[in-house]
């Protein structure tokens, strides 16, 4: 109690205009910024994987398994920031037990479980099953047992069984695409359906979330591929990289157009909230929205990738451009999440004032935990790479 009063009292001085008394405490902080960022990466990485299976984009085949494992690693971590921000994490299971059917958030349990169990794990299992069985045969000790358990002790690698595996994986990917759309679209819906908040309330929100998810997911897999391949002392497949950059570019164009449409629409309709939102965008959100999200995270990488496509640059320079662009895209998408989640709470629902957000360093909702949650997927991914090597040469002969 004293702690929270100590945290909130200095904020009183930084309020401009009028906010409702209960609005001084900002309720969805850094953790809720991280949550849509992580699920976005999951959905984006999965969409990239589906390019191979469903749309037969042969060039990006080297990243297929990397994408799946990346999606899995981030999906495992995605609910953790949600859990950490709850007032009563120990009651979180209620969302599975008595989901309120009218609540977008209650659907979380089902969307998440469906996506994790019915899509991602199944697809990975069917894709890896043959390899796991063959690996287990050659291995000994705990690794053998681990692989045996992950294969559910199945042993049938007849052509008929493998044909079934391939078919199943393809069907699951086809189901997976709308599921990935659902996973991230519904995160957008959680925000987009709050009619009390004009910054969030927009039909475009789910689809903007979706495309920014695809952008961030492709960029992430591109980064991982570019880092891991030299570490394994292998050559980067330029055709694969170029293709990924093309898809990244296309997704960014769509994402940018949608966001621009949303922006123009708001200004043109100029509703009651326009005054306070103008204050917000030109003031407290200027650096994170206009500078970081729009300029650094969108326009510069768009221009850079366009330049690569137009001019005949040497591969070295192409790689460098892709790499830097992908990093900028990550920074940009993270600030997109920040601007939605935090930005939507910086103005009062009385539309008469602005408040501030100050994060703490320690504590469950602090900076340290957030950094940990951003690092954790990479640790899990490292373990997954070890347990289920996604490399072409690791495939059992």
């Amino acid at each position, binding site marked *: 109690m004293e702690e929270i009063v100590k945290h909130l009292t200095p904020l009183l001085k930084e309020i401009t205009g009028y906010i409702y008394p209960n609005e001084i405490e900002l309720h969805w902080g850094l953790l809720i910024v991280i949550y849509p960022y992580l699920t976005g990466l999951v959905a984006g990485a999965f969409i990239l994987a589906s390019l191979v299976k469903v749309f037969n984009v042969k060039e990006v085949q080297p990243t297929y398994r990397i994408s799946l494992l990346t999606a899995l690693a981030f999906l495992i971590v995605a609910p953790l920031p949600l859990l950490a921000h709850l007032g009563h994490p120990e009651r979180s299971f209620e969302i599975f037990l008595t989901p309120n059917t009218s609540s977008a958030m209650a659907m979380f349990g089902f969307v998440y479980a469906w996506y994790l169990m019915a899509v991602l794990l199944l697809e990975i299992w069917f894709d890896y099953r043959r390899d796991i069985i063959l690996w287990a045969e050659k291995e000994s000790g705990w690794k053998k047992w681990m692989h045996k358990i992950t294969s559910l002790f199945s042993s049938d690698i007849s052509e008929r*069984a493998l044909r079934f595996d391939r078919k199943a994986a393809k069907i699951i990917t086809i189901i997976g695409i709308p599921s990935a759309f659902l996973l991230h679209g519904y995160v957008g819906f959680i925000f987009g359906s709050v009619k009390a908040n004009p910054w969030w309330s927009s039909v475009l929100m789910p689809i903007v979330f979706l495309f920014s998810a695809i952008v961030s997911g492709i960029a992430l897999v591109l980064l991982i591929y570019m880092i891991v391949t030299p570490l394994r002392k292998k050559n980067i497949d330029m055709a694969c990289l170029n293709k990924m950059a093309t898809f990244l570019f296309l997704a960014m164009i769509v994402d940018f157009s949608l966001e621009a449409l949303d922006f123009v629409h708001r200004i043109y309709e100029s509703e009651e909230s326009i005054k306070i939102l103008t204050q917000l965008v030109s003031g407290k959100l200027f650096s994170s929205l206009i500078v970081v999200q729009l300029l650094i995270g969108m326009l510069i990488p768009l221009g850079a990738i366009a330049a690569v496509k137009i001019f005949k640059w040497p591969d070295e320079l192409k790689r460098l451009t892709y790499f830097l662009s992908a990093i900028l895209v990550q920074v940009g998408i993270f600030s997109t999440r920040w601007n939605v989640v935090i930005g939507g709470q910086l103005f009062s629902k009385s539309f008469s004032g602005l408040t501030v957000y100050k994060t703490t360093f320690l504590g469950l909702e602090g900076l340290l935990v957030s950094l940990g949650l951003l690092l954790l997927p990479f640790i899990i991914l490292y373990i997954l790479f070890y347990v289920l090597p996604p490399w072409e040469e690791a495939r059992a002969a």
Partner: protein
Amino acid sequence: MACNLNKKSMFVVFARFIIERPMNFNPESFWNKIPEQVKRLAILIVILFALFVVVRTVLVPSDFGEHGHFRASAVEEIASQEIRYAGQEICLDCHDDVVETRRVGFHRDVACEVCHGPAAGHIDDPEEVVLEAPRERGYCPLCHEYLPSRPTGFPQIVSASHNPIKPCISCHDPHDPVPPETPKECAACHATIARTKAISHHVYVDCTRCHEAPEEHRAHPREFRPTKPAAREFCGGCHAKDAPGEKGIPRVDLETHEARYVCWQCHYPHLPEAR
């Protein structure tokens, strides 16, 4: 016709399928047709699902959903919260004299607990729990300190200049707060108007010059209202072209100047804009 036939043949095929199928159906061969890995997966899924259903039946509160999507006993829990403010009716049981005094005075609508604080404890144990009775000067101004935002007519004072130091109760009985003398100044209740007028050109125009307030207005302000000037000629007494008085007074031609209106329909007499 062709369509009809088609439907008919489809029906036949379907019926055959239904009827004949069980005859050919061999559970063993059906089971064998399922790929081995799917069987293992199916078993895992069934186990997980059964586990979920079991956990769910154990953990969902038994009264959940009885009257809607919530725990019915939550309402009972909320309804059983401890009461602090007892409500003014019960005070009458012991303090009938005070309640009667209050009931006819200006504070008739002010419940006992507004000043004395929550009384439920006092009702349970009148000896042990004694209620507060704010005697210091700070309490009454919560309602009666002058604030321009307060509705006009509500009695207000500026405590800094209103008999400073003396506690309010030395002159006013809070249960029947009749002022020791009926205020002569309108400003006692119409402080905002008085203050506005004080900085205006009408500073030397007394309230009574424009308003006639019946004597009863002081005791029953809402029942007996003061008057307002009804005719243009009233203001014209000073502001008409040919009116007597100082040269500096702004003057208009009553004949031509917005003849449709009484003056105060446009000009705010307590703060005329020609400052």
